[in-house]
């Protein structure tokens, strides 16, 4: 992002991307309604850019499919994300990007909960509370500078898909 500034986590671990989803016969059948599942949510968030590095949240293992919980019947989506370091000051921004991506992509009926993987961040309660407060989120997204930063994280490019 800002060239020349010291990165918080200069040497992140990089993980391998999951392959493409295997299609089943039901997926191809027009008459069978596709319930939204964990994989679909993961596909939405895996390519979100990290604010600091030219890498996706999947490549940094910040998001993993195993930490996505969807209940299509109950209309709930829960995503746990793991900041790369416990004092990551970008945690709220990353959480907000995930939340915004899901708010923009999913049907209105879903209740979306984005939280930090328990035990992985020094201020997880404070960050989780902010992300859960829809009034705070709505006001933050009316801040054009913050909105621009979030949108930058959500730009998909050919490399990260």
């Amino acid at each position, binding site marked *: 992002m800002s060239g020349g500034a010291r990165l918080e986590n200069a040497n992140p671990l990089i993980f391998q991307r999951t392959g493409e989803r295997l299609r089943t016969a039901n997926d191809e059948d027009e008459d069978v309604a596709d319930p939204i599942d964990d994989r679909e949510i993961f596909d939405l968030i895996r390519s979100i850019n990290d604010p600091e590095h030219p890498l996706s949240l999947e490549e940094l293992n910040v998001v993993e499919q195993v930490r996505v919980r969807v209940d299509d019947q109950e209309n709930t989506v829960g995503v746990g994300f793991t900041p790369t370091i416990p004092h990551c000051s970008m945690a709220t921004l990353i959480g907000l990007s995930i939340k915004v991506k899901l708010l923009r992509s999913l049907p*209105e009926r879903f*209740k979306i909960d984005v939280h930090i993987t328990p035990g992985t961040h020094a201020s997880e309660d404070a960050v989780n*509370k902010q992300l*859960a*407060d*829809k*009034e705070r989120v*709505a*006001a933050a997204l*009316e801040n054009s500078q913050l909105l621009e930063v979030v949108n930058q994280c959500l730009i998909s490019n050919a490399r990260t898909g």
Partner: protein
Amino acid sequence: MNDTVALLQKFNAHPDSRCWYVAWNPKGTLLASCGGDRAIRIWGREGDSWECKTLLQDGHQRTVRKVAWSPCGNYLASASFDATTCIWKKKNDDFECLTVLEGHENEVKCVAWAPSGNLLATCSRDKSVWIWEGYLSQSLSFSVDEENENENEYECVSVVNSHTQDVKHVVWHPTQELLASCSYDNNVCVYKEEDDDWECRATLEGHTSTVWGLTFDPSGQRLASCSDDCTVKIWKECQPEGGQGTDTAWKCVCTLSGFHGRTVYDIAWCPLTGALATACGDDGVRVFKEDETADPDQPAFSLSAHVPKAHTQDVNCIAWNPKEAGLLVSCSDNGEIAVWNYQSGV
């Protein structure tokens, strides 16, 4: 249970955005709504349906979070994420912006008129509660061209910083000059005026997450709060032990838990019937009735009626009509307003 909540009307009030709040005027004939589209709309009943009488589009630069009618019904106040509060004056079907109250550092979350009509309270994410005093003519029956010169003067008389986080809502006592506020810091504060300055007289602790809404019961003896912890708490003012001093204490005398699946965003106590209605993030509207109990210090409430899918998204606000018993309005993240009729079998 033979108590019911029946849907009378549902209509889209704020296209493609949230409807954050809806308020009845004191006569119960008009509804003011506000939302994420930065607009305020005034709705009036035409036969069986509600028509938009006025659209106020240019008052605010960001979301309008709450609106409040003055006790005389001739003025409307609007609180916005743009950090300002607008006071509007009603002129037939139109409203004109009288003055803009500035001062909060960031989003204003609520505005409320004191029953006396000359005091206003606002609260904000900047953690403060501001009390404003101004002069408004109580009636519009001046001669046509005469405008009261002092009408635009609103002064801030107190800034109180009792909360440690965003203040979400403020509400005035129905009869006394007493104010209550609730916050992201999980507490409720009660304020009184002392020597021309407003101060916090009591901090009500008990909720385990953000407190979103507050409402006094018709007599003003009890306060109900609703929270992100999915409970509703009833508080009562009681004499402290020792009997010294002018401060009274507020105790939690009842907690309603296990009824709401998600955050309870708003709560309203009906001034006519005493029924308690809630607006919840699980899309439901609920009405509670007080049980006949022997001990007034240990009230009990039962769920009287429940509409599980009142809206297709979170219900943000719930309000009882001040004149027509049982008439209830709610609004939602999907931009809709719904009007309901609550009937109690007993």
